[in-house]
């Protein structure tokens, strides 16, 4: 039995958004990145529960920034992908790639 954490589709989307944003990954920027890349705005509830779940699985870590007046004096919670998270997303994307190999999709070429 594989003890490595399995990732759902939305979890992969969130992990990739965190990876793309690097040091500036927090709720608003992650949501904006997902919207920009997938043309789908994630529901806040789904996003925050997924972020909590990813942290519980040990795939991301979070730290609190300084409070700012634009946010009603509330601090940002920054997320960072750790080595376990990076390994998990790499493994999940490899699986997708293996599935896509040999498939003919319009506009995409996976030889």
């Amino acid at each position: 039995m594989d003890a490595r954490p399995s990732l759902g589709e939305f979890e992969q989307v969130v992990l990739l958004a965190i990876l793309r944003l690097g040091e500036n990954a927090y709720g608003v920027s992650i949501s904006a990145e997902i919207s920009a890349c997938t043309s789908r705005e994630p529901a806040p509830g789904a996003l925050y529960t997924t972020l909590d779940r990813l942290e519980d699985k040990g795939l991301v870590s979070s730290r609190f920034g300084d409070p700012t007046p634009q946010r009603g004096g509330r601090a940002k919670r920054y997320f960072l992908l750790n080595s376990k998270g990076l390994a998990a997303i790499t493994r999940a994307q490899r699986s997708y790639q293996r599935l896509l190999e040999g498939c003919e999709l319009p506009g995409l070429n996976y030889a």
Partner: protein
Amino acid sequence: MRSIHFAEWILGLVTSPDRAASTVGDLVEGAADRGVVWFWTGILRTAASLLWCGVAGNPVRVTGVALIGLAVDVVASLLLAGLTGVVFFLAAWYGHRVPLNSVWWVIALDVPELLVSVLIGRILARWAPGRELSACLAYGILGSIFSIIMIFVSTGGLGPSALLWVFLSDVTKRIPVLAGAVWGRHRGLAAR
């Protein structure tokens, strides 16, 4: 500004205070472009998602805690019914007429029930630290299923409107349980 504190209080019921504060901060930042309705919809949807996650994240434990609450509820209801029966019996024995419509009797019958409900909320909070309201939700769902089954067993079935009435009165009865769980959560957070 007061409404932001209220939003933070709502989220603080289902997640840690620092996470609640940062989530509210994110929604305040987003609401600058999208408006107040988006902010409150976001708060309520996030709270509902976190509440349900508390049940789905550890269903066995949360259901177990809810069943403990339900068992306490059944035992306490039987004890209270027995006690009320004894009081009525003694009153009749000594030739007193029990004025059921008097305010004092209503208080005497309802206050113990209210206290037991608050106590059940405290028990749920004690046995499910960090998931107090999720345990409350599971207790409410199981309690409603239990009530409907008991009504079907005792009366042989009810119409849809009567079932809706049972469900709504059950929801009303859960409010003191919820208050007890919130109280327990705040005490737990203060102690940690």
